[in-house]
């Protein structure tokens, strides 16, 4: 193996990365650096402080915290990291060039493994801050910090190696065209299931205090998992148990050597196969050859219907998008179960369900509707050249996304309302709210996808840029808050009108009730205005869209 070659691979990639960040202004790099430092201080400081405090005042939590931090890092990497691993190890014209050049596969593996680790900088940094904070709270010796930092880097490399190894194995067993999507789906679904199971174990419900005994219990249950070993090693360092810490340390290092070695070996053997199979631009179901349908002779020639029909056909044929939708649905159902527990204290079952509906419709619309416009990819240029307005396009997209999402949300709402033993009037109210919120959130989701689209992104989760994401989160929170507030005010007004005491024993005059209804209508109108303003901005952004066509 030639170290200079590895260094060259890394250096060139870092140069390309820097050029992408800087673009045509070197001041961009300084601004980004300042932003990163600020972000690091805020995010890192928060995690460091939380861990430091918990470790100081709850010493029995130190080991579960360390075990949990390393396990969380591994799980999150498994859930979100597969596309990165595929992109780094099996895709790209630059990789093709390396394969053509006199470079050994092992050198490519090491170079690419280091680059893949770059994608986990944020996760690694947060984990490192949490682990270091735990050490600081326990008054750890300097050696702890050194080992902790090395362990975080090692854990990132180990999980990357594990993912590469899995991909190599998938390449052997799964039909070529489905290999990429099968691996992404398996990883995402298992990650999502582990995460939901973890959440359920913690038993932290709305309106209740977090139950840390769940965390301790969970940490005990995953003791045997290799993801927990670095946590045990560091915990032993804190306890001053030299032999035990050396044992865990050796086990971790041994596992790292085995995993990275095996990944390097199998990668060398499957690199060429992987290049052929993963480098494809789209995943397609195998279609049986048969007589084509007579498509043009019936139906209506409406562009709106044509867009919706095309979206429906392409969505169900795009294995990649479907495979990514599945974990989102698992998350959603997991959360529905997680939040939908018999609530005690101040929050009644009706309001518990109301928050659940708001959350579920927001979650699913962000997961599905935001990609409605960017998923057009190069086909978007076809729409721009067609004699249709962008308002028409947005209308088609909102209507197409709304039907399945609002249907799903309404079904969940009715389900939880009935399970929560709500009376028929409450079930009706919850259903109306589900429809209202579903429509609003879908329209917002489609709009933010149009405001900041990434037509070149292959992954649905990366189809909206940071500006769009920020605008989307803000608008959804605004619309949701205004709607729920209006709904609450209407409920108060009904109580007032019925002459029931509202706040304690205070009875409010009926005239105030009428004013409250007017106020609720204004709040609801403000919510609607948020949606329409966003749709208007989205249409205007799409009309003026002029990004590089080559990138779409």
């Amino acid at each position, binding site marked *: 193996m030639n170290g200079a070659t590895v260094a060259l691979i890394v250096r060139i990639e870092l140069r390309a990365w820097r050029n992408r960040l800087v673009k045509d202004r070197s001041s961009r790099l300084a601004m980004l650096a300042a932003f990163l430092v600020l972000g690091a201080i805020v995010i890192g400081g928060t995690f460091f402080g939380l861990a430091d405090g918990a470790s100081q005042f709850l010493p029995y939590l130190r080991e579960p915290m360390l075990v949990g931090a390393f396990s969380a890092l591994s799980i999150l990497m498994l859930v979100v990291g597969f596309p990165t691993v595929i992109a780094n190890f099996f895709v790209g014209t630059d990789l093709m060039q390396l394969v053509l050049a006199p470079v050994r596969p092992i050198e490519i593996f090491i170079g690419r493994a280091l680059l893949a680790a770059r994608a986990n900088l944020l996760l690694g940094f947060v984990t490192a801050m949490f682990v270091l904070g735990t050490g600081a709270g326990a008054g750890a010796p300097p050696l702890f910090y050194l080992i902790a930092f090395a362990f975080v880097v090692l854990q990132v490399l180990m999980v990357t190696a594990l993912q590469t190894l899995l991909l190599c194995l998938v390449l052997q067993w799964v039909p070529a065209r489905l290999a990429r999507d099968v691996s992404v789906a398996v990883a995402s679904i298992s990650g999502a299931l582990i995460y939901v199971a973890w959440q359920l174990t913690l038993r932290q419900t709305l309106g209740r205090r977090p139950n840390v005994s769940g965390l301790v219990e969970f940490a005990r249950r995953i003791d045997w998992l290799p993801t927990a070993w670095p946590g045990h090693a560091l915990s032993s360092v804190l306890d001053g148990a030299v032999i035990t810490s050396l044992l865990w340390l050796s086990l971790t290092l041994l596992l790292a050597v085995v995993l990275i070695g095996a990944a390097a070996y199998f990668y060398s053997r499957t690199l060429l196969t992987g290049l052929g199979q993963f480098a494809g631009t789209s995943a*397609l179901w195998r279609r049986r050859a048969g007589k084509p*349908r007579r498509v043009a002779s019936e139906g209506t*020639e409406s562009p709106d219907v044509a867009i919706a029909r*095309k979206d429906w056909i392409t969505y169900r044929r795009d294995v990649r998008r479907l495979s990514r939708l599945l974990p989102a649905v698992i998350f959603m159902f997991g959360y529905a179960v997680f939040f939908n527990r018999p609530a005690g204290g101040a929050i009644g079952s009706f309001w518990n369900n109301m928050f659940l509906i708001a959350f579920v419709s927001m979650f699913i619309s962000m997961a599905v509707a935001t990609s409605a416009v960017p998923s057009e990819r*190069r086909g978007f240029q076809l729409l721009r*050249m067609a*004699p249709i307005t962008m308002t028409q396009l947005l209308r088609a997209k909102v209507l197409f996304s709304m039907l399945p999402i609002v249907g799903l949300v309404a079904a969940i709402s009715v389900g939880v309302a009935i399970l929560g033993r709500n009376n028929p009037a409450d079930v009706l109210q919850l259903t109306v709210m589900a429809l209202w919120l579903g429509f609003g959130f879908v329209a917002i989701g489609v709009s933010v996808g149009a405001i900041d689209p990434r037509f070149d992104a292959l992954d649905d989760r990366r189809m909206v840029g940071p500006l769009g994401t920020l605008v989307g989160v803000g608008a959804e929170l605004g619309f949701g808050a205004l709607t729920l507030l209006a709904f609450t005010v209407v409920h108060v007004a009904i109580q007032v009108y019925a002459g029931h005491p509202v706040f304690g024993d205070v009875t409010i005059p009926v005239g105030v009730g009428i004013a409250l209804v007017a106020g609720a209508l204004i709040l609801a109108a403000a919510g609607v205005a948020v949606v329409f303003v966003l749709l208007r901005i989205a249409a205007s952004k799409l009309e*003026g869209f002029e990004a590089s066509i080559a990138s779409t």
Partner: protein
Amino acid sequence: MSSQGATAVEARGLLKRYGVVVAVNGVSFRVDRGEIFGFLGANGAGKTTTLRMLCGLVRPTQGQALIDGFDIFAKPMEAKARLGYLDEEPFVHPHLTGPEFIDYVADLYRMPRGRERQQRMDRLLELFELSSRSAELIGTYSHGMRQKIGLASLLIREPSVLLLDEPTNGLDPRSARLVKDLLEELASRGTAVLLSTHILEVAQALCRRIAIMDHGVIVATGTMDELRAKAGSAQATLEDLFLRLTAGPESKALIDQLLS
């Protein structure tokens, strides 16, 4: 508006600036009905940007693009309905079959559904030898087949103006010949064709007039005879004219230097 006039495409002082870079600098020309107009230029000369301004994908910093007398940005619906643009990498949906894609495009342009449309689609698929692949997804097609399905999606609706960016790129000789014959036939029936190509033989054989672009400006426009007269060489081929008008460093000297 002059939808009855002879001019089908008109570029009026088109200028496109990206920051400090001027990609296209005051380009003006006209393409008449029934004419095949060649658009030549070296890589990066500004041909594709000009075509994209004409079809409404890129907004010019200055100037106007008219299709059948309609400004593509002021009257987009009217202009777009008359226009067909084929990019060098066609804008297709990989998860649709060929017929589904053509059908989708026809709907976007509100072409009435029915037997006539179906028959036209069948004939186009047959013409481009895609009938046997009708049940397959476009994502599985080769580049040449994608090019053909892109062309078929334009021709299903008979636009009066065609803007084609390297339409024979990636086509086998038989299909390339088919496209050339088709363009001549369409032009004879009154369709205006603006053809951007690097294949000078194709341009010389098909185009009545030719514009040559270099560094964002048109350096010459006219028939072959007019271009020869401008270059002062009565026997020059289009390749000679092109190289003379877009003069770069002497390649012979550079090659000698490299290989010595």
